[in-house]
């Protein structure tokens, strides 16, 4: 049995230790906000936070997440009130939206680590693929989210 804490809730799971965290989230916990795009840590659609750090859950064995705090898009806020979510809505960022959970989780980690991210910081941290090409509004939204987060703190 593996003990996994996701969005503050503890789960006891009878799954293989090497099953990627992504599939445990999607197929066993029904947290489908985290997406499958490539399976080889190339696209970032599966990005979640592990103890606050953005990781690509498609290549992280569930055992490596045991005993740590997993945060998925569903746990970012209960009501779309996280600064990144607010800024995303304000800037109408999403198109097809499939990559957006991963992008938002990466952006949330970025503004936490760097409260005033520069363009270079954004370029370095935001390596997830968006096939709809929402990069320009996403960059604007990240800066806006950082501003909203600074206002709160």
């Amino acid at each position, binding site marked *: 049995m593996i003990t996994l804490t996701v969005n503050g809730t503890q789960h006891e799971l009878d799954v293989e230790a090497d099953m990627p965290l992504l599939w445990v989230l999607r197929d066993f916990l029904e947290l489908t906000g985290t997406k499958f795009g490539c399976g080889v840590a190339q*696209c970032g659609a599966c990005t979640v936070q592990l103890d606050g750090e953005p990781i690509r859950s498609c290549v992280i064995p569930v055992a490596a997440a045991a005993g740590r705090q997993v945060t998925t898009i569903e746990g970012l806020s209960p009501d779309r009130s996280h600064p990144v979510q607010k800024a995303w809505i304000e800037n109408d960022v999403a198109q097809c939206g499939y990559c957006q959970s991963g992008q938002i989780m990466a952006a949330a980690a970025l503004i936490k680590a760097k409260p005033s991210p520069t363009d270079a910081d954004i370029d370095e941290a935001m390596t997830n693929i968006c096939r709809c090409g929402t990069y320009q509004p996403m960059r604007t939204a990240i800066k806006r989210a950082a501003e909203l987060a600074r206002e709160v703190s």
Partner: protein
Amino acid sequence: MNALSTGLSRRGFVKATLSAGGGLALGFHLPALAAADGPWAGAADGAEINAWLVIAADDTVTIRVAQSDMGQGVFTSMPMIVAEELECDWQHVRAEFASANRSLREDRVYQRMGTGGSNAVRISRPYLQQAGASARERLIAAAADEWGVAPETCHASASRVVHEPSGRSKRYGELAAAAAAVELEAEPAIRKPGEYKLLGTSVPKLDVPAKVDGSAVYGIDVRVPDMVYATVAACPVWEGRLSSVDAEPARKLRGVIDVLEFEDAVVVVADSFWRAKQGLDALDPQWDLGEHADASTEAFLERFRKALDDKGVVAKENGDAYDALEGAAKVVEADYSAPYLAHLALEPVNCTVHIQEDRVDVWTGSQNPESVLSVAAEVSGRPAEQVHVHSCFLGGGFGRRSRPDFVARAVAVAARVDRPVQVIWTREEDTRTGHYRPLAAFRFRAGLDAEGTPVALVNRSSTHSILAGLRPEAVADGLDQSSLSWLADSPYAIANLSVEHHLQRTHVPVWFWRAVGATQNAFAIESFIDELALAADMCPWQFRRQLLGSRPDMIPVLDAAAEQAGWDRSLPAGRGHGIALVEGFGSICAQVADVSVSRDGKVTVNRVVTALDCGNTVNPQTIEQQVQSSIVYGLSAALWGKVEINGGRARHGNFDRHRVLKMAEAPRMETHLVLAGGDKWGGVGEPAVPPVVPAVCNAIFAATGKRIRDLPLADQDLSWS
């Protein structure tokens, strides 16, 4: 106002109840966080005024969307068109996907449900406006009837019907049930451009909130009680067969339920996707690769190019191009080629199917729920009326999801599984067994007179026909018009023209790829036009401009792109501007790219300025987003895009070898709408894809003196000194 009030009938209620059951929510539960108040829930509550809209007692208006949303914003723009006429408060509007099953049963009440060709607004607008206008008049008639006044003395505004002389008013929610029973004697006229209040204003997309908290339901997110998962490996060479497979290594793994053999594939069914994939990885299927096991892109291209030695089927002819070439002062000749391209939608194709005694349920993100329905009926052998398609959001479409091959496979799998099954393709399987933008080769020969005016062009292309596989009769004359975009319909005035075509076929399946034929053709011809400008010693902008005598409507668009980009600004060595112009999907699009190339050949696209004439607008913010999306999509293809065929198969399957543009590589993008207005309604999802590629290639020439005649750029040596 010719209204006939017939009192309350049950019909509206019955239909509304049915539609609640026929929508997205039927028979499956939404993932944990999918709130019931979201526009994806599909359980419209209230009185159905017509098939397109339902009004609830609290004034909520649910508008049905017959087209698919793959990011292009129809989940908002279609409801905007209805709401424009309905005079409802936009804050009360929600959207849900229309039912293909209902459209089948009710004589195509949703008219058409396919999404492609940048057609959604262009085709749907008149009948969606009509649906909204009709509903408005029926609400007015219901109120007038209740008050015993003439409908002409009432008007609708902000979800209310108002009778000003008496100061009375009623909310739509209070009138909906009665309005549902009203029959109009004649349909009201619809508004024209210039009369719009909502259309033409930027409205935030209705589906964005659901896409920031993980609750939007894509096909891959569907969870049906008792559902199992499956994943597929098809013969790596198209048209090949499965010879044999020892299922045991998979069967003994945890969670594996079954190993299914198909004529051309093996499928593993398990209790979770990862276990299904583990099962598949454990197998060593033996394939009969068939007769194409030695095929390669290289050999195809050699064949395509060889054909260009001969005159092809003539698609368009003006004057005598061959004769005029003889007499030309200067002749310019060049060969171009464009590779196969995969769509690479981020959500791998997937489809969930449950076959029961008296019904077949299909959940998927598709660009055509009607074709999903008919394919599912055909493969399951059930009457079409028994098939229910539950439309989900699409994690990218780009044309890929208009082909229902994956649905056919999923239904065939479901027919052999006694439970609901979700079939998910891995990224590699999706890419390698995809259906690609055609490989193409071109040869252009042009003659200029002593003043540099082009007087002759022989324009030969050699490529696949997409239509040949769909409607062979459409290409009986050896021409596929979808392969000839921007070749046969080029606006540039060249007195002697011969546009010729060689239709090719390989075993590699081809399909519509965002913006279709113009993507390969515009790269070639818009680059060649630059070569002619150079030969004429003219600026590429002015050279195009002087050839647009027959299309004065294109000139302001071309000029806007050049002027807004600062075309005449001098740029340092290694940096250049490139321009291109393409009309497609009813819209004119000109783009200027500002590109830097380092001495060792690294390309950076600094900025892309777009001018677009799509005539009129529904949601301008969405248009700008679609232009940006098109640029990023086109740039990914220009820089790295290719599907390399070797040994009869696609060599690479994942993003490590199919590189696409990321945040750091995205240029600054500016969009300028240069709208002709009037009756013109052009598409916006695709027109900005074709010009960006030649604009960048022309900029590279300006920066380095290197002419790009083959793609992708990553395969070219762009170093300079």
